[in-house]
């Protein structure tokens, strides 16, 4: 009994000893916990506090409003319009499809939109609104709002979308905005916002950074799923700066109307400042459809239209200048000193070069004996074959370059093409054959290899008209304000002064000869554009016609008798060109008209220039000009 009790006591003692040991272990482990708590909550607290804030606070960008674009008279040509969108928050509706069906009875919802909404709603989190349709009419908005109780999860959101009040009339100047493509991402987080749009063409593209503005930020508290709990702070962004154009929307509209169905381009430019007053490429497209989203069918149609509505022909259409180039050849001849204005040459309707016979456009009988003035006025090919033969390719090409041909004019529009002034080296390198004498002769009437854009022809006309000064076309009214806003005003004023027009170094007397020739084109009987003369002397225009073959006339055809142009299919007819300026005595505006397949410059291009130049002078009476047309300053 005693031993048993003794044993029991021993057992209890052993257990107590072990229990104390165990308690020590437990105490050690609890101390570890306390140490860890101290480490996390005291030593590392700052770091974790920051991480918790990072978790909780989400910085979101608030896209800025895009800057407005106005014309020279302050008329808005690109604005931001409220755009009503109907959206659905899938977690707020029990049956997504049923709700969509009910919505479909109120406003049209296409099957494609329906499928897209169902797909997006599955992919996105339940509280993220999915856009069903945008650009709702006011009536549709009202219909949805009235039925709101029956449409759980459906809501109306207001956004801003770009609107072009003049639609097709301004499309090629303004371009359009669209969603950012992968290649356009620059790392600017603003570009990654799903609904953000940037300028894709035209002025919208050139001045995108000016128009874009700066993004605001919104600090929101989010939970682990990304749901916004509340907004903590908000910093409004800054709306994009406005861009003022030199364009006269009234004139632009007039030009577009005047062109009607023609596939044509028209430019009106201030000969002193280079300010573009009208820049029209017809047919055009409606940029508003681009912001609303274009249907695949409409897009196909735009792409397959043979009159290329998406191409801005003024800057990207390259044509042989034809007889309009004779003003350049004449100037080159005078500058060379080899030809005097009184130089006379007799036209029998053709000229022989080796075995080849080159024809004048007036191949029956010819023009008879002409001096330089008359040769320009009547556009005698034979006279200019002879002039070109005498002065040679190099002099012609050099003068053409000085007049602004063969290189991009530098207008503030994307997609301008350079044209082409051929040279011996160029032909050997590209065509692989040496330059031929006949080609020099053909160049005398603007036809071999040479390519120009309507805008370059306008620059050429302006440089002749303004007395031989460098002039560069531009669309933004005051580049100093738009582009150089950050610079101090003193520098800006200085930049303005430096922008005195630079002389091209032509002799004023020689320019006067060419001007007189161009005057006779439209103001003397026998001139090729006499029928398009402006009868009001104060507004009179001077110009030069041109027609360009788009197909080669074979000898057999010539012998068989030429088919009438009207009998040819549209795409085989000659292009019609006309360069001009007005008024004759104090030139202000240069105007180029190119009518694709318009048969003849005097026939279809000159009448348009006639109307356009009258309108331009009516819209901008001479007195106000001096102030408005300060030449642009740029560095």
């Amino acid at each position, binding site marked *: *009994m005693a031993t*048993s*009790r003794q*044993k*029991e006591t*021993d*057992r*209890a003692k*052993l*257990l*107590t000893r*072990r*229990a104390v*040991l*165990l*308690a020590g272990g*437990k105490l050690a*482990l*609890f101390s*570890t*916990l*306390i140490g*860890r*708590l*101290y480490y*996390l*909550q*005291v030593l*590392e*607290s700052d*770091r*974790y*506090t920051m*991480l*918790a*804030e990072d*978790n*909780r606070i989400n910085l979101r960008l608030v896209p800025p409003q895009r800057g407005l674009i106005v014309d020279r008279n302050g008329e808005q040509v690109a604005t931001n319009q409220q755009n009503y969108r109907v959206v659905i928050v899938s977690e707020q509706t029990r049956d997504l499809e049923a709700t969509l069906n009910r919505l479909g009875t109120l406003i049209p919802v296409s099957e494609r939109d329906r499928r897209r909404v169902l797909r997006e709603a599955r992919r996105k989190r339940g509280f993220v609104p999915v856009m069903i349709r945008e650009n709702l009419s006011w009536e549709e908005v009202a219909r949805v709002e009235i039925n709101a109780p029956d449409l759980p999860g459906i809501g109306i959101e207001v956004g801003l979308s770009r609107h072009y009040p003049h639609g097709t009339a301004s499309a090629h100047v303004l371009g359009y905005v669209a969603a950012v493509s992968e290649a356009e991402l620059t790392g600017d987080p603003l570009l990654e916002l799903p609904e953000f749009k940037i300028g894709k063409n035209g002025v919208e593209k050139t001045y995108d950074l000016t128009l874009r503005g700066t993004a605001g930020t919104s600090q929101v*508290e*989010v*939970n*682990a*799923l990304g749901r916004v*709990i509340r907004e903590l702070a908000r910093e409004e962004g800054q709306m994009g700066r406005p861009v003022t154009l030199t364009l006269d929307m009234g004139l632009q509209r007039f030009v577009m109307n005047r062109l009607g169905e023609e596939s044509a381009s028209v430019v009106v430019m201030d000969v002193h400042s280079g300010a573009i007053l009208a820049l029209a490429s017809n047919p055009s497209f409606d940029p508003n459809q681009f912001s609303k989203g274009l249907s695949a069918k409409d897009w196909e149609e735009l792409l397959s239209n043979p009159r290329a509505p998406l191409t801005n022909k003024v800057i990207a259409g390259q044509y042989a200048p034809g007889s309009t180039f004779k003003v350049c050849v004449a100037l080159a001849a005078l500058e060379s000193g080899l030809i005097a204005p009184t130089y006379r040459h007799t036209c029998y309707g053709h000229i022989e070069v080796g075995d080849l016979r080159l024809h004048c456009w007036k191949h029956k009988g010819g023009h008879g004996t002409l001096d330089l003035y008359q040769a320009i006025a009547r556009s005698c090919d034979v006279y200019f074959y002879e002039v070109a033969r005498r002065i040679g390719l190099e002099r012609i090409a050099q003068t053409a370059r000085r007049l602004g041909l063969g290189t991009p004019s530098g207008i503030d529009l994307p997609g301008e093409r350079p044209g082409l002034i051929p040279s011996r080296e160029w032909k050997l390198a590209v065509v692989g054959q040496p330059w031929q004498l006949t080609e020099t002769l053909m160049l005398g009437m603007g036809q071999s290899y040479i390519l120009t854009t309507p805008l370059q022809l306008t620059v050429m006309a302006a440089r002749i008209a303004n007395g031989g000064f460098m002039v560069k076309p531009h669309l933004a009214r005051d580049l100093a304000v738009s582009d150089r806003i950050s610079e101090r005003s003193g520098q800006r004023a200085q930049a303005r002064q430096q922008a005195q027009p630079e002389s091209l170094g032509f002799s004023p007397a020689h320019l006067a000869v060419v001007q007189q020739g161009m005057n006779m084109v439209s103001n003397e009987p026998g001139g090729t554009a006499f029928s398009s003369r402006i009868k009001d002397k104060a507004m009179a225009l001077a110009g030069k016609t041109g027609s360009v073959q788009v197909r080669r006339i074979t000898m057999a055809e010539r012998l068989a008798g030429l088919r009438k142009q009207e009998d040819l299919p549209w795409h085989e007819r000659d292009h019609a060109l006309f360069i001009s300026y007005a008024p004759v005595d104090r030139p202000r505006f240069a105007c180029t008209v190119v009518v694709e397949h318009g048969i003849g410059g005097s026939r279809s291009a000159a009448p348009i220039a006639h109307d356009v130049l009258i309108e331009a002078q009516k819209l901008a009476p001479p007195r106000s000009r001096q102030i408005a047309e300060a030449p642009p300053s740029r560095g």
Partner: protein
Amino acid sequence: MALQLDSLNQQQLTFGRKLWRINWSLLVLLGATASVGFAMLYSAANASFEPWASKQIMRFGFGIVMLISVALVDIRVWMRLAYVIYGVALVLLIAVDIAGVIGMGAQRWIALGPLQLQPSEIMKIALVLALARYFHSLSIEEVGNPIYLIAPLIMVLLPVYLVVIQPDLGTAVLILLGSGAIFFVAGVRIWKFIVVTGAGIAAIPVGWQFLREYQKNRVLTFLNPERDPLGAGYHILQSKIALGSGGVVGKGFLQGTQSHLSFLPERQTDFIFTMLAEELGMVGGLILLGLYTLLLVYGYAMSLGSRSQFGRLLGMGVTTTFFLYVFINIAMVMGLIPVVGVPLPLISYGGTAMLSILFAFGLLMCVHVHRDVRIGRRGLDNEG
């Protein structure tokens, strides 16, 4: 002889005397600790008693009644029933494993009418009872003899195996460590523990092969939390951020951003300590640890105050298991050990856990109520 008389009187306690001997202050302490849990559940539901706090309060109330009932049952009855309970728990464990095989997936629950029963929870208590009874019957010499250790080892390893294949690694570790503690206080030689621990470490590479992919991930993520910050490591990283950002005094009750903005996973169950430390800071964390320490002190006092080896072992087993729950849970949310699904006792939301903890405390209280009852080696009254 007075002692003899006194103990004789203890053999047959009246119901009234038993009630008198219940330590009501322990109940108050349990209530205080559980109340911390109620407050946190109220906060977890964004200042609402629904859906967690109200249910938890009801369960606690029910659990306290159960605790008292368990305490009033004669300790010798528990001893006599020990093996039976163990056997039933074992059968239930096998049953869920079979159901799991049939159901093609992890299965830890048995549906008993409206009640969801987790056999591994029952096993934790059953094993403590069974081991206490077994070691109660061994003399010091017998405990020193390895042959006598074979039976209890089988008693431990059988349920451990069944739990591991469920697979529930956390519970398996908990059972192993809890049983080890009973072996330890029962007097098994310390060198034997060293040998077993050494063998266990040597077996880790082998055991690694048997782990499921997600279990391997948890361990790997624990060893290198940056390995997968958005996947497996996300929970523990968010938990550490919550703890750390709480600072010394916390963000304030109901103000935990990590918890309330759902960055913290399972804030009402396994990660509730994190939420407490985020909202109430290190001060709150230390207060809770203080409450737990007090409970452990009560457990030690009650265990060591028993006159029977069974009572002492049972008390120590219950106390140690309780300690292990607390330590493993808190160490896990602090990123000290890999993520294992162990709730924080008395605080985490969950019916089975709350009831089994209070049942265990009922046994502890039973040891206390019957502290002067002597039990013979074979479980017969006053045999010695």
